[in-house]
């Protein structure tokens, strides 16, 4: 039998039931004679499940995934396990960013809860330091500094985000201009919708108003990411507000800490049980 090459994209189409009869037969025959190909299919399936959990599938793929792939309890359970694993890994990722150390293992959840309390107290003390001045120091620091620049930048950004997004605003924030941008969830946004913010020479607060498809969550977590999904910062305990446009979550960004580029906010809802559910992704641009 001729060894045809099946790439991950075609295998995904097969797993989503969106493939020609001929390709389906060729893939299935290959499964029964090629162990490596069986493994490749299994890996592609797991990657696809992880992409679904991370809301990285296109709208069409997501629809096909939910309609076709999630039609068996085994696959639904696979997604739930993936979701649980992603949550544990996200907790570990934030632990790494906050402590600046390499975790030797995925921490015990009870330790994580205790660690969060310590980090909250530490973040409160750091809030007294002016983030803008610290950022300037970081920018002009010797390039060969041994300090992990990415982790430090993340810590700086998250500290500023905590300051800006806490319920009571301090006097420093009201002195700054506020630039507002209303964003619809990725599945319902218009092609002509404005999604750009412009960095001016004076520092200002970018206020993103994230429209909610519904408001069934206790509170929300917002993950600021590059357009490729690399997480830059995470803020918890955001609550929904009612504006003239409907229910929104307001997420404030410090313009002086942002660079021009393509970004997205991934919004996750927190249920009463403490579990997380994906709400939507909100892409936007920052320009000069």
């Amino acid at each position, binding site marked *: 039998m001729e060894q045809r090459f099946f790439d991950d994209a075609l295998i995904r189409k*097969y797993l989503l039931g969106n493939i020609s009869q001929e390709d389906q037969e060729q893939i299935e025959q290959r*499964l029964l004679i090629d162990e490596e190909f069986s493994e490749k299919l299994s890996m592609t399936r797991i990657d696809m499940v992880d992409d679904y959990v991370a809301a990285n599938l296109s709208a069409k793929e997501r629809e096909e995934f939910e309609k076709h792939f999630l039609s068996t*309890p085994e696959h639904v359970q696979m997604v739930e396990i993936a979701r649980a694993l*992603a949550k544990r*890994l996200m907790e570990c990722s934030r632990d790494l960013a906050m402590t600046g150390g390499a975790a030797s293992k*995925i921490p015990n959840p009870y330790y994580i809860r205790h660690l969060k309390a310590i980090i909250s107290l530490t973040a409160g003390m750091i809030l007294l330091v002016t983030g803008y001045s610290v950022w300037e120091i970081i920018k002009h620091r010797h390039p060969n500094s041994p300090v992990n620049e990415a982790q430090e930048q993340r810590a700086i950004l998250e500290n500023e985000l905590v300051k800006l997004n806490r319920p009571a605003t301090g006097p420093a924030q009201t002195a700054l201009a506020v630039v507002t941008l209303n964003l619809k969830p990725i599945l319902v946004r218009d092609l002509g919708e404005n999604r750009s913010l412009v960095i001016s020479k004076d520092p200002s607060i970018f206020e993103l108003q994230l429209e909610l498809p519904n408001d069934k969550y206790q509170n929300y977590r917002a993950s600021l990411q590059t357009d*490729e999904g*690399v997480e830059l910062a995470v803020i918890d305990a955001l609550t929904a507000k009612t504006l003239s446009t409907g229910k929104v979550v307001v997420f404030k960004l410090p313009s002086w800490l942002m660079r021009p580029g393509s970004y997205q906010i991934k919004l996750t809802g927190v249920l009463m049980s403490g*579990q997380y559910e994906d709400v939507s992704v909100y892409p936007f641009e920052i320009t000069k």
Partner: protein
Amino acid sequence: MKKQRDLTQPEFDRLLAWLDEDRDHAADKYEVIRRGLIELFDSRCCSDAEDLADRTINIVAGKVDQIAPAYSGEPGLYFYGVAKHVLQEYFREKTVPLEMPLAATVTEGPDDRENLFQCLDICLEQLSPEDHETILTYYLEAKRARIDMRQNLTGHLGLTSNALRVRAHRIRKSLEKCILLCLEQRESGRNKSN
């Protein structure tokens, strides 16, 4: 569809003999075919893919005496033909609801979710330090950062990037099996106490 019976030893021996003259090679081919059948039925969204795979194997094993003298070519392809019939029968017998709930969940409430997380934590604890490091680094972060980290990890473990993907995948599969077993044990424990 009722649970499939195991092959008898003589049936299994005849099947292996048909797959290959060398018994070890035959056993390898058998495993490739069985795994391939499970992947096939799972990919076609059949519940209990393992049972359907065993059903297919049982049917072929029952016909080996007729097949062996005349059949030439890959035995796996013969299994494929039988698997297609098993699939047709499966979908004929299966009652398909008119509308499947989107993203339905089998964890019905907070207790089920709590069990899932507890089983996940137990199974993560059981991983070796090396497997822990592989999973942690492979799946942490996303895309660009993950690619950088994976390149570091492949260097550290002396693996090519595809070999790393395969290794991480195998750890993930064993993690899933552990979690499913843990959940099953908790469910049977709960049923006994009720």
